[in-house]
């Protein structure tokens, strides 16, 4: 009698799981099963794995007969089989995910998903999970081969487990990069450039994964638990990997979210968390390693990302619709929420605020750092804000030019292109005029005057204070006419119906 509820539960479980699974995953896996690509790839993969293992067995037999033993033959066979597995997975899963997403990502198809109850986050997760399942499928197909290498000796079970986990995470990260590339909106040319960039990203992840696998295979995965340096390196790599993965994931969701929604909020919240962890982490590592250079790297990374967020913020929309405004909190929290909402003014304020807090923290924290590497920190604290001042100036000027002269021809979302062109033109043209426009005796001996509009001129340590002053002046000149606009945006930022 007691078996009946268990039996009915066991019968109901598949249906429950079927209902619980993300619909995108179900669709993607069904498509993969029905399509020819996955089957062809698997057949080819199994053929190569079988041939490799057969060759390894033959070699092992020959060596065994010749020398009476073949220690390490398992390691050799495992590394080849793992290489084939990772090579196939890196080649197939991200490309298949990118292809599927790109072919389905015409506006109408995505629109159809938005009229359902699926959220953009579920769509992004579903596509990634489907990639994860395809990878798992490949890994499970290779498991019999990999297990067999254990009997050839030279490879321990724990290392196999660690290497497979690293490989799996690597393929998942590459799939996420491919997914982001497939969802970025823009013209065909721009999306092709993004796809090339993503390809470079996938190749880099694949190279890093395979290289770290080979290193761990030769040393054994236990090294991660024995050596302190290896532990720190593993934690740093894992943290960097997790941060980049989170950024790619949140950007993918933002790209999939309709413009009318508050799509900047999750992005800025994620960036804020990563900013705190990266800056705090790099400072802690600098103290641990007694080397300020690690903190300088953290500062430069932060300033580089802020330069990109400034350009992106200038391209955000000016007006917020009722769907975004209805989420604005009341009272004092309204102003706290302002930098985290969609909109150009919010985006610019978030970037400037984070840049100011980074510089403040860096200036305060520098005092407690060891002497080694403090020069790097000091240079980052001067040059970093200097670059940002220039970028802020170009971002706002680009926005001004678009609004005033190109409103009908260039969309709000492409403001960053104008800003970037402006920065490139201002950096290159004076140098060209200096070199080609003036006769030899008219040309100054130093390049200094020709680089005053170049954001990266602040990297010149000798003239950095002058360049930073010029950058700050340009930033102030571009900010000043926008103050009224900014204050108006802050005033408008309230729930519909709330009194000012």
């Amino acid at each position, binding site marked *: 009698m007691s078996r009946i509820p268990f039996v009915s539960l066991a019968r109901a479980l598949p*249906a429950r799981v*079927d*209902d619980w699974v993300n*619909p995108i995953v*179900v*669709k993607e896996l*069904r*498509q*993969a099963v*029905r*399509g020819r690509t996955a089957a062809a790839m698997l057949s080819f993969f199994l053929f190569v794995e079988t041939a490799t293992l057969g060759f390894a067995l033959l070699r092992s037999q020959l060596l065994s007969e010749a020398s009476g033993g073949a220690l390490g033959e398992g390691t050799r066979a495992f590394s080849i089989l793992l290489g084939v597995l990772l090579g196939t997975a890196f080649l197939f899963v991200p490309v298949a995910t990118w292809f599927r997403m790109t*072919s*389905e990502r*015409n506006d*109408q*198809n995505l*629109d*159809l*998903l*938005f*009229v*359902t*109850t*699926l959220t953009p986050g579920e769509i992004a997760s579903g596509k990634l999970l489907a990639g994860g399942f395809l990878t798992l499928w490949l890994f499970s197909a290779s498991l019999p081969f990999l297990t067999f290498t254990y009997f050839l000796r030279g490879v321990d079970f724990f290392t196999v487990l660690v290497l497979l986990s690293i490989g799996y995470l690597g393929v998942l990260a590459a799939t996420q990069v491919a997914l982001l590339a497939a969802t970025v909106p823009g013209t065909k040319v721009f999306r092709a450039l993004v796809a090339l960039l993503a390809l470079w990203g996938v190749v880099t992840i694949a190279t890093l994964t395979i290289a770290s696998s080979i290193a761990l295979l030769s040393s054994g995965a236990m090294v991660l638990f024995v050596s302190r340096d290896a532990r720190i390196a593993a934690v740093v790599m894992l943290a960097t990997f997790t941060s980049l993965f989170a950024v790619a994931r949140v950007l993918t969701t933002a790209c999939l979210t*309709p413009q*009318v929604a508050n799509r900047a909020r999750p992005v800025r919240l994620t960036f804020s968390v990563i900013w705190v962890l990266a800056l705090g982490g790099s400072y802690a590592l600098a103290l641990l390693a007694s080397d300020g250079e690690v903190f300088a790297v953290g500062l430069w990374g932060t300033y580089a990302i802020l330069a990109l967020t400034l350009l992106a913020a200038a391209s955000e929309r000016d*007006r917020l*619709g*009722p*769907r975004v405004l*209805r989420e604005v909190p009341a009272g004092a929290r309204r102003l706290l929420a302002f930098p985290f909402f969609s909109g150009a003014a919010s985006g610019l304020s978030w970037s400037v605020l984070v840049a100011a807090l980074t510089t403040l923290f860096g200036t305060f924290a520098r005092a407690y750092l060891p002497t080694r590497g403090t020069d790097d920190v000091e240079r980052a604290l001067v040059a970093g804000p200097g670059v940002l001042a220039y970028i802020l100036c170009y971002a706002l000027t680009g926005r001004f030019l678009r609004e005033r002269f190109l*409103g*009908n021809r260039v*969309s*709000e979302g492409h403001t960053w292109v104008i800003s970037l062109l402006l920065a490139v033109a201002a950096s290159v043209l004076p140098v060209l005029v200096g070199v080609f426009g003036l006769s030899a005796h008219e040309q100054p001996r130093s390049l200094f005057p020709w680089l005053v509009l170049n954001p990266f001129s602040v990297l010149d340590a000798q003239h950095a204070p002058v360049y930073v002053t010029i950058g700050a002046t340009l930033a102030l000149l571009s900010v000043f006419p926008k103050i009224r606009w900014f204050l108006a945006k802050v005033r408008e930022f309230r729930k*519909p119906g709330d009194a000012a």
Partner: protein
Amino acid sequence: MKVETVGLVKEFGATRAVNGISFSFSSGEIYGFVGPNGAGKTTTMRILATLEEPTRGNAYVDGVSIVEEPEHARRVIGYVPDSLPSHRDVSVHDYLDFFARAYGRKGEDRRRVVSSIEEFTNLSGIREKMVNALSKGMKQRVCLARALLHEPQVLILDEPAAGLDPRARIELRELLRVLAAQGKAILISSHILTELAELVSGALIVERGRILKAGSLHDILTGARPQRTVSIRPLERAEDLVRFALEQPGTLEARLAGSTVPTVEVTLEDGDEAAAAFLAAAVAAGFRIAELRPLRGSLEDVFLEVTKGEIA
């Protein structure tokens, strides 16, 4: 269920795609949405489907704002865009099953609803066929089936008959009639005005984002002309009837028409009185009238009359 838009405005940069559109339609009604390309039809429909946000104005489904409560609108609105499904390696059944899952349908309820909608839209026989291998007409039927999966009370169809052959168009028309009879409120845009006129009870003609004409089909078709034209088929003496008609007070124009069966088209001052008086006078004068029927202006005539072919 009533769908109502109030002063909808949608701007894309400096372009105003929709400029103060207000109209309403209710359960059991099929409402036509007519206008040249670029008139703002698709944008208005996308606003109603919660895919766009109006710059100004609002739209309501049963009094609930779709701008402020888009989630509510999505539950009651089924939307068929003007594009066909392009998913690869997916069968009709799997495609519908996927969307049913995406609408939150679970377990037995999902299987039941997919099966009944396949049957209703006559897709049961091709449920295992790949979507991208279907004909346009079949794909359009799949689109309609997809929009019905969450059993919406309102249907918004953007150019559903575009590119369909006559048979597929007739089948689609019949399906829509059944849906309207089931109590659904349907908004449909189409460029095939003759067919639209046979289907809709009301219509809206827009150009450059503005409403040019709106109301019941009868009002639109008759309201466009200040006079009434009737076609009369006498058993004999058609030419005499033309001369007689021209002598009558209230007759604006009369002419011989019809090549095989002679008929006379008489344009009278508007109103039933003029038509009744003319008929009585003709019979009294000895004309034997076999048939008299009013000639209505077609939706195409009205469309050509009120639009100028301008784009917003």
